[in-house]
């Protein structure tokens, strides 16, 4: 048997909680690489946030060695994938590094939305799908029904699918057998020029950037000079190796079909773009892998420390995060309402949330973020053009000749009975219908062109809820289109709050303004005086709410002279105010700035 035919490169896809990480752990354990004691639960998900949310943010890989019943030794490379639309591109690159995917389905819950979305992605990358029914030990397990469901909904044979309990370690051997028998081995050209796909990279303080690759053709040899085909940067390889569970195992070279890593004293993670092709500088491949995209931030937010004195801490923390996150962008910003902070660019809302959570958790920062914005193009009367990512910088309307907003092509794959509801959603969001294709009798692909600013708030959440979770969603920026945009300002007690300004399509301004005013009314505590909250375009007020004046705030008597308690109550009241932001003579709680991010949730 030749070398490559003993390799299988695969990933595991599953709905959240269907047992992806547990199965991965079990495979690692069964392959005998880790003893029981070394086995840390869920080896693949390294970050705290990943464990808590049960999602994988960064892709990771692990190499297993498995001795089959006929005594052949196989190398199984398991590549973990992130699971959210913000990271669709990263997922697609991880999938592109594999020949097959193990599909884990919960025996009690059956096929669920995320399962479908991920299966569709895998099918697009022409991967072999190996279904595995997990949690067969649950009392509610109904494996026969689930098998039928897989065949009906996904359209792949499932009668012989392994029935396992990853938790109880039942029938794990069968998963290995199916992977080996059903997934094709790699078939790269060992003698050809080096061609390897980058599916992830991380920054290490000692080694520089560690680049995770799948070698398709040729071989990557230690000390050779490699070139990244997207930017033509060249580096001398310092170390190559494979990925043992939780450790790097150096090797002299990586051959066609193998998955591993290399380091090359690369200082900047931005140089090692996911999806890029690595080749040998002296004998380069003719062309790179298709599908490479430079991932640019799509959504911009102002991020401010709740405590102004933490500005430098925030900057240091962002610097550190950027070491490992090539798609994070930031530059200093100043707000009259929120003080010094940064305008940050993210891939999407989840990316923002993850960065924000890491800043708060790992760096102990308390943050306020402003409403998201995309990049608008403004053509001015003096024949100049500006790119606007911060609503506060919007020029006066009289200086603008025309405006353009970014448009995405959105592909939504969904069961056919939800088509009506989702088409309606796309219409509401100013979408332009492009086409609809039935992929199967019960499954369709819907294509719309949508303004990006209509999907950055909550589109994904609404899509999920209106399709009862079954729709998958992918989008890519296709260009700019002329648009009638206005800047909506919020005035609190007649003072404009710059951090709450945003750019919106003229047809949506009234509704958004009204919702923001309503939301702020709920968030701003009553003061001794009445506080008008107004949404305005230019000088025209389009919505107004009023926070009524406080009419009663008296304490009961201090029984038995308990004055200390009373003083503390007053101090607490005072302390609460200190944490608020002063807009004119109104104290605005930090939560108010955040609440307008989630306007449509009610």
């Amino acid at each position, binding site marked *: 048997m030749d070398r490559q035919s003993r390799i299988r490169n695969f990933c595991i896809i599953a709905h959240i909680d269907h047992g992806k990480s547990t199965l991965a752990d079990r495979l690692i354990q069964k392959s005998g690489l880790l003893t029981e004691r070394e086995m840390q639960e869920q080896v693949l998900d390294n970050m705290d946030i990943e464990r808590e949310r049960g999602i994988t943010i960064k892709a990771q890989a692990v190499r297993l060695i498995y001795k089959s019943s006929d005594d052949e030794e196989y190398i199984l490379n398991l590549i973990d994938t992130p699971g959210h639309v913000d990271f669709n591109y990263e997922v697609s690159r991880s999938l592109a590094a594999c020949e097959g995917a193990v599909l884990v389905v919960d025996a009690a819950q059956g096929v669920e939305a995320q399962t479908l979305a991920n299966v569709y992605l895998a099918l697009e990358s022409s991967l072999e799908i190996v279904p595995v029914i997990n949690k067969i030990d649950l009392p509610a397990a109904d494996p026969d029904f689930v098998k039928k469901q897989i065949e009906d909904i996904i359209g792949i044979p499932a009668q012989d699918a392994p029935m396992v309990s990853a938790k109880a370690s039942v029938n794990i051997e069968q998963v290995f057998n199916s992977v080996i028998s059903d997934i094709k081995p790699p078939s790269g050209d060992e003698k050809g020029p080096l061609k390897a796909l980058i599916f992830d990279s991380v920054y290490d303080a000692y080694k520089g950037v560690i680049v995770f690759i799948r070698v398709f053709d040729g071989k990557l040899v230690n000390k050779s000079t490699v070139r990244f085909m997207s930017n033509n940067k060249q580096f001398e390889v310092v170390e190559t190796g494979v990925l043992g569970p939780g450790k790097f195992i150096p090797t002299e070279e990586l051959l066609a079909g193998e998955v591993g890593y290399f380091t090359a004293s690369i200082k900047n993670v931005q140089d090692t773009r996911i999806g890029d092709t690595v080749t040998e500088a002296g004998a380069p491949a003719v062309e790179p892998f298709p599908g490479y995209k430079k991932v640019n931030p799509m959504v911009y937010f102002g991020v401010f420390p709740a405590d102004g004195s933490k500005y430098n801490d925030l900057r240091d923390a962002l610097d550190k995060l950027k070491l490992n996150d090539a798609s994070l962008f930031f530059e200093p910003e100043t707000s009259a309402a929120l003080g010094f902070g940064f305008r940050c660019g993210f891939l999407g809302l989840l990316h923002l949330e993850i960065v924000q959570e890491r800043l708060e958790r790992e760096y102990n920062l308390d943050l306020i973020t402003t409403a998201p914005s995309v990049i608008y193009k403004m053509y001015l009367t003096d024949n100049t053009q500006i790119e606007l990512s911060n609503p506060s910088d919007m020029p006066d309307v009289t200086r603008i000749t025309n405006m353009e907003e970014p448009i995405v092509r959105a592909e939504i794959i969904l069961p056919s009975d939800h088509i009506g509801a989702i088409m309606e959603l796309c219409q509401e969001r100013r979408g332009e219908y492009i086409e609809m294709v039935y992929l199967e009798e019960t499954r369709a692909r819907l294509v719309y062109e949508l303004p990006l600013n209509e999907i950055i708030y909550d589109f994904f959440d609404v899509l999920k809820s209106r399709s009862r979770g079954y729709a998958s969603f992918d989008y890519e920026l296709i260009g700019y289109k002329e648009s009638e945009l206005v800047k909506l300002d919020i005035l609190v007690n007649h003072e404009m709050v710059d951090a709450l300004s945003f750019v919106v399509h003229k047809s949506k301004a009234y509704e958004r303004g009204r919702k923001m005013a309503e939301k702020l009314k709920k968030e701003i505590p009553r003061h001794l005086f009445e506080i008008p909250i107004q949404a305005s375009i230019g000088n025209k007020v389009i919505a107004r709410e009023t926070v009524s004046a406080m009419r009663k705030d008296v304490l009961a008597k201090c029984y038995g*002279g308990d004055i200390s308690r009373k003083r503390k109550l007053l101090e607490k009241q*005072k302390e609460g105010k200190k944490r608020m932001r002063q807009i004119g003579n109104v104290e605005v709680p930090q939560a108010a700035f955040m609440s307008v991010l989630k306007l449509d949730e009610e």
Partner: protein
Amino acid sequence: MNQLGVYVHIPFCIKKCLYCDFNSYADKGRYKKEYINVLAGEIGSACFLSNYEIKSIFIGGGTPTCMDIGDISTILSKIKKHKILENAEITIEANPGTIDYIYLKELRQLGANRLSFGLQSASDRLLKILGRVHTYNDFLKSYDDAIKAGFENINVDLMFALPGQSLADWQDTLCKVSDLGATHISAYSLIIEDGAAFSSLYKKGELILPGEEEDRDMYFSAKYFLESKGYKLYEISNFAKKGYESGHNKIYWNCEEYAGFGLGAHSYINNKRYSNTEDFFKYLKDENKIVFEEILSQEESMEEFIFLGLRMACGIEIDKFGKKFGKGLFEVYGDKLINLISEGYISKNGGRIQLTEKGVYVSNTIFSELLC
């Protein structure tokens, strides 16, 4: 010789009212004797009392009048080992229906010269909602007995903004109580305290309370009505006929010294505030009952001087602040105070500042502005 007030806490009740979150118990009656012994011991060992003249004694609760008269006598006699001013105010809280003429007569003989009745409302319907043990008629009987027993200085505690209470209900109560001729009336709006039975009802939405505007109307109608009947609103929630302001309350509001005895009682002596445990059995058993003490910083003393002083209609004497703290009032609170004056929440008349009518019902907000 310095003067102080003495507070004694009796944590027993016949039944816990639904709005009550004070440290009082309806289920610990069998420990009454033990409690009195411990309390008497606590008072007996308070040697510092001999450095003071006692100008006021207040026995509060709970329901002090659910104790045997002998127990009250034991406590008072312990206090009387120290110097008590001739005209000292000696108040005992009483719940209607827990006392009779004989009991009241004996109280009078023990030296009590002021009664504080917890009536809360003259409407039997509302008394029932509050979970009170008595009716309005029970109160009338007790009030009558008190007069007969020789009490002429009587406070009646009232509450407004009660669940299901209308402005007319409230005015009816005010009318009845003022017609009786009580010398002092306290009127507090109901506050839903976390520990009270009302709190869970309120959270479930089963307690419908008058709105803020109605609450305000009730407050101000009490002010105008009782003022027409010869009472003066001398503190945010307290009314008195001329000469009958509560001396004991004014000790707190004037930041004077007081010594508290009994479960959870607070003391303020020598610029130190401290309090006993609120744990009933710890109080009975532990030698050291003090669980909290703080020495007030100058800043804290200033804050208390302000927020307690401003509760009184007469407000704060600007010079007194200067003398007490060595810094002028406007030097410390300058802009904040000037703003509040210019916005009409505080007024400055001659040498004093007071809350205005506009400021009085949002006084907490005003006070918190004036913290350092």
